[in-house]
């Protein structure tokens, strides 16, 4: 399938990624080449093959439901661009 500007704008919205109008044509062109390249896979016969999600087919290990972490909020928030009273701040969501 050939990607259009509209396709790419939709994908970028899903990914919450702003692409400037000046860059969009270049992104459409390069992404189009990547999609065309991975489309080669469509010709592979995988009819009797189970999908593989983990290289050793391991399943997720479970652990006991015990507290292993202590409170590091103040330490972690030193990396935050904007905090107030121990809370992360963002533009107003509710009027």
């Amino acid at each position: 399938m050939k990607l259009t500007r509209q396709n790419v704008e939709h994908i970028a919205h899903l990914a919450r990624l702003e692409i400037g109008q000046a860059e969009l044509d270049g992104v459409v062109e390069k992404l189009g080449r990547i999609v065309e390249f991975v489309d080669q896979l469509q010709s592979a016969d995988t009819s009797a093959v189970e999908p593989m999600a983990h290289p050793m087919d391991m399943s997720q290990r479970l652990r006991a439901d015990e507290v292993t972490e202590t409170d590091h909020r103040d330490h972690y928030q030193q990396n935050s661009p904007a905090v107030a009273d121990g809370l992360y701040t963002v533009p107003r969501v509710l009027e």
Partner: protein
Amino acid sequence: MSELTSRPTLAALSRALAAREVSSRELTAAALARIGAADKALNSFITVTPDLALAAADRADARLARGEGGPLTGIPFAHKDIFCTAGVRTTCGSKMLANFVSPYDATAVERLSQAGIVTVGKTNMDEFAMGSSNETSFFGPVRNPWDRDRSPGGSSGGSAAAVAAGLVPAATGTDTGGSIRQPAALVGITGFKPTYGRVSRYGMIAFASSLDQAGVLTLTAEDAALLLAAMAGFDPRDSTSADLPVPDYAAALGGSLAGKRIGIPKEFLDAGLEPASAAAIREALRVYERLGATLVDVTLPSLALSVPTYYIVAPAECSSNLSRFDGVRFGHRHEGATTLEELYKKSRGEGFGAEVQRRILTGTYVLSAGYYDAYYLKAQKARRLIANDFRRCFAGVDVIAGPTAPTPAFRLGEKVDDPVQMYLNDIYTIPVNLAGLPGMSVPCGFSGGLPVGLQLIGPHFGESALFNFAHLFQRETDWHTRVPPA
């Protein structure tokens, strides 16, 4: 100090430290001086930490004086800037994390620090490890010490260049599709990627979680074995960490290769491999025959599916992993957004470079409604075909050998505008990650004055045999001792 040549190995430094011929402070100060003198031209480091390094060196010297040191105690070392280091900036080569100071250490970092290693800094890399040339780094490309107009490969290009240039004897790397082995090949050093799950991924900034694996870039296989012994092992903080004992890798070095079988995939030596590189690989295989090993023809019929499969699976996982960068809790934030959606979109649009954005978009596309089965599920099935190819091969051989990269180091700028050409550079390394196998690259010759790497691939958890195969090759050849021009 007779053993300490212009570019001493980690093992030689270790012996000199144990014999008290040199102190860690002297080695560390010398490494810092080399970085200061040479790295403007190479750009292999993003952050250098002289004060922390000298303090760690003094602690190592005290430990050695008490007779409590191990083989890594006091060795100057560098970490790829994808590993979280407590109190030290950890950028992952991205504007997004340009000011991020990690609150904790990655498990691999913690284990090496406990062994007494001395970290002098953090090395440059492709942004979020997405690249094969180091040109996607927000901090500028790394230059290949053999020819500064050429790429050192990527994504662990900073670690590779720093070790090849003798700035540090070894460094960590990570390998999702070849990011340790390919740069090791392109700068003429040893690069080791263990089996998936062998080294904890905790604190290693995630790219594609079913493929990412930590490893090392060193001057010799012996040095890699010493480092992996300290880094490997079960970690409850990594949900896919392998719960298996770690063998004594160094003890396996030197065993005879008589009767061992090396599989040569015919697809690896087909057209596409640069002729002088192919000649170097064939010569390396003759060395193995002299060492008593038998060469066996094998086939990987699904090899051609590897790169397209990878460029569905890896971007899909990347688009999920990188959704955490939202401009809210840490990382780059766009100032002046009036809505939360605008904050997300602008922070991510500004914080991520072009290649990372392409991967996020590709991943979002292949996972989106209506395309999941055709792309993502199809790729997961093709992934099994590739893994099955290797399983069939390892029923009859001990290791698989072939090239690491299709060409020697390419020029900076040569492939940067053509993502698909750049992706195809990893044709020989990507299938190994898809199958979760251990792989390594060892120097095996030159093409036009540039290093060529021999790739060795083992079965799951076959690290010991790989180290020995590479070690015996390095006893027979001197390619790994060739030093780039100053």
